[in-house]
């Protein structure tokens, strides 16, 4: 690795500098006065959990969002980047996590759309740059036929065609194979060799340590660690990213208090669908079963098949001792199984409704239910607002004005209102702050104490380790159980990461 040669650039002035940036969305503060530099010839990695504010920083630098307060300096001068095209004019280009490929336009058109100037010159330029970065495809083919790796190269080429001095790579490796990741790393080195500054975002810590010169870790809208990569280890990064009050010794606190009733509340036998194969497991009253798995492993699909969203799955599901061959969200909730979906905004919450109406919606949706008067609705909402410690000024407040954590609690309240005996939580703490996360864990403990069976699906190993009594690993649509003695961060992480590596190969 060309670590030494890149050290030479460290002293140089930043290409882009953020100074005291604040960002507030829908009354929710996402960034709290951050400072951040990107220097020429340097790969600056940005780390942080979901909802820590990473993508907001990226969008501010690339001109898609305007900061609520603070300054952006480009090569020492304060600039306003009101539009992405202005950021491009200052030599800043973002390669988004999901490349913006226009499937109905040709590859060449995909490369050149949005650029002004003489057509033949631009086309020639596009071909040269494509050759330079190793994009070898039919230029007349539809954009829709490109592989993800090539789509990313198209995006990088778009940046270079705009003479970018700063490239932002937002999770560029998340859907690449092992081989493609290596060739991307080579590309990145070639780019920094030309003096281009790179902002690199990734979840994979080994890659970050391998590729970057400098790492910043973001948590709840503030930096908790800014350091040169040299001397950093995976352990240091993991610790920085963990919630402030995470205490490994308290992890298994809940396990001691098993209730007397331990009947099976959920049995899944030989369940198969397009996304997973022959899955069997069971959940007892008062127990937390963690399902650990990477995105795309089939874990959410499994939950949706059990909950009756995906009706094509075959196999048996027994809820509270009764077979449920026909399932829909309504039937499941009537059989007292509930589900908190992974994507809160898309599937969970009604943002523009008063919270009381979201909370009552599940109860009202049950067949044979009655319309709830505003008074009844208010009473139900008040009950959960107290029980789950939801912070709002009144039950009539719209959910959109709440923080992520409180929004998640509203979804939890909605899910708990029909009094389920078994509940599936899919990424229950995604995008919420540390305190809300502890609240969610507390709620899970209270539920199990009351004899509810809980399934927690998560890609965050620390979360699985903290809350689970038993741990299942979902990998490529197949489910396996962790041995009882190995339910800790290291073992689960090892199992999950090892399996991820296998996928890459």
């Amino acid at each position, binding site marked *: 690795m060309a670590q030494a040669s890149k050290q030479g650039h460290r002293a140089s002035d930043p290409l882009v500098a953020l100074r005291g940036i604040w960002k507030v969305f829908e*009354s929710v503060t996402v960034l709290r*006065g951050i400072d951040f530099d990107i220097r020429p010839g340097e790969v600056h990695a940005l780390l942080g959990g979901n909802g820590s504010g990473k993508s907001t920083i990226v969008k501010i630098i690339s001109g898609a969002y305007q900061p*609520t307060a603070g300054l952006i300096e480009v090569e020492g001068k304060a600039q306003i980047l009101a539009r992405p095209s202005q950021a491009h004019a200052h030599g800043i280009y973002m390669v988004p996590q999901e490349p913006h490929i226009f499937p109905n336009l040709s590859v060449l058109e995909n490369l050149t759309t949005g650029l002004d100037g003489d057509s033949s010159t631009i086309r020639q330029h596009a071909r040269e740059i494509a050759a330079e970065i190793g994009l070898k495809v039919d230029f007349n083919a539809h954009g829709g036929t490109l592989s993800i790796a090539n789509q990313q190269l198209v995006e990088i080429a778009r940046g270079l065609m705009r003479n970018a001095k700063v490239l932002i790579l937002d999770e560029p490796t998340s859907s690449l194979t092992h081989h493609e990741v290596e060739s991307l790393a080579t590309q990145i080195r070639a780019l920094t060799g030309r003096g281009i500054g790179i902002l690199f975002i990734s979840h994979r810590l080994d890659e970050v340590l391998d590729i970057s010169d400098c790492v910043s870790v973001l948590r709840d809208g503030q930096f908790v660690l800014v350091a040169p990569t040299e001397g950093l280890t995976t352990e240091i990064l993991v610790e920085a990213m963990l919630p402030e009050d995470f205490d490994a010794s308290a992890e298994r606190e809940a396990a001691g208090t098993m209730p007397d009733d331990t009947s099976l509340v959920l049995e899944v036998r030989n369940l198969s669908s397009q996304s997973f194969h022959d899955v069997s497991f069971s959940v007892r009253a008062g127990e937390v079963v963690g399902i650990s798995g990477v995105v795309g492993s089939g874990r959410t699909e499994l939950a949706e098949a059990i909950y009756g969203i995906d009706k094509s799955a075959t196999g048996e599901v027994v809820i509270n001792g009764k077979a449920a061959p026909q399932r829909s*969200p309504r039937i499941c909730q009537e059989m007292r199984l509930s589900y908190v979906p992974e994507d809160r905004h898309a599937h969970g919450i009604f943002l*523009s409704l008063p919270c009381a*109406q979201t909370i009552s919606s599940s109860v009202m949706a*049950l067949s044979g239910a009655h319309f709830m008067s505003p008074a009844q609705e208010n009473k139900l909402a008040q009950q959960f607002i107290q029980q789950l410690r939801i912070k709002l000024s009144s039950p009539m407040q719209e959910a959109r004005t709440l923080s992520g954590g409180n929004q998640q609690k509203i979804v939890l309240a909605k899910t708990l209102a029909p009094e389920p005996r078994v509940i599936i939580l899919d990424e229950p703490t995604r995008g919420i702050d540390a305190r809300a996360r502890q609240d969610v864990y507390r709620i899970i403990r209270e539920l199990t104490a009351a004899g509810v069976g809980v399934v927690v699906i998560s890609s965050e190993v620390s979360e699985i380790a903290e809350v689970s009594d038993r741990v299942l690993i979902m990998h490529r649509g197949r489910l396996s159980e962790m041995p009882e003695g190995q339910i800790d961060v290291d073992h689960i992480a090892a199992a999950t990461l090892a399996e991820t590596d296998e996928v890459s190969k």
Partner: protein
Amino acid sequence: MTRFGWLKSWEFMLLVALVVELAVLGMINPAFLNVQNLLFSTSDFVHVIIAAVGLTLIIMTGGIDISGVSLMGLASIILGLSFVAGAPIWLAVAVALGVGLLAGAFNGTVVANTDVNPLVITLALLFFYSGLATGLPTLLDMLGFKAYNAGGFEAYQYEGINGLPKSFTWFGTGRLGWVPMPLVVTIVLTLIAGWLLKHTRFGRFLQLIGVNPEAARYTGVPVKRTLITVYAINGFAAAVAGLVLTAYFTSARSDLGSEALLNIITAVVLGGSSIYGGEGSVLGTFLAGLVLGFLRQGLLSLGITSDVVPVIVGGLLIGTVAARIGMSALQRKRANRAAYETERGAMAAIGE
């Protein structure tokens, strides 16, 4: 909500607008304010309100159905043809309303089961129903049906069907005390629809679907069934509108109501419904319909040509939406600013 929160409501503003409008028109032309005339003039436009009330329920779900204007004519001609074919008038009414209901349910079935934009689906059906309405008389001839009083049905293709019994036309021309029957029908339907929306599970489902259809599905709301039902209700409302107009004109025609689309959608939007769904008020639609209708009557009474009316209606539609967009953008900006100041203050306090 404070005790006087309703003073800020959109419905109240519409009520104020209605009063101001009548006052201004009355000042210019005192003759306009004759209560009896004013009430009776509503019969010219309440069909718009009836159809708009049905559409309000659909727009609640984030959908749209523009085929209602064709269903008015279809219901009218079906009533007329059934009557000419010898059916008793109550049966003819039932058939016409039934067709409206079924046609609406069909619209809803296609909307609920495909991802095709409801605007396209109901555009196709707008053509289909209006073609059906104009073509039906000749179809009956081709199929060999005989009109009750000899002659083919074809004559009714563009001509109205007259001679409808008094018991039916009373719904268009009669009155209950001072209130003309069409207005009575409109008020009854508005009350029913308003009750459905505000006080039933069905109404809440409409709102949940409008705010977030996917979340509604995950919550257990029967999305498809609700959609089919609401489109059926809209079809029924359109058929009622067609029949009220038929009774008022004492003549059944296939092209009744075909000009009403702009007015219907304007009434819904001016009434406070969001075209994106999740927000709407039946009472608002009713009041907006009155504002629009009296505006037209007032201008006519001032001797201003009715040609100006669509200009004003169109302008109102655009102006209302633009004003609402501006207001909400301003509100959001203020709220974000306030949140920032609070957090920043809190952080500074910690820092000190």
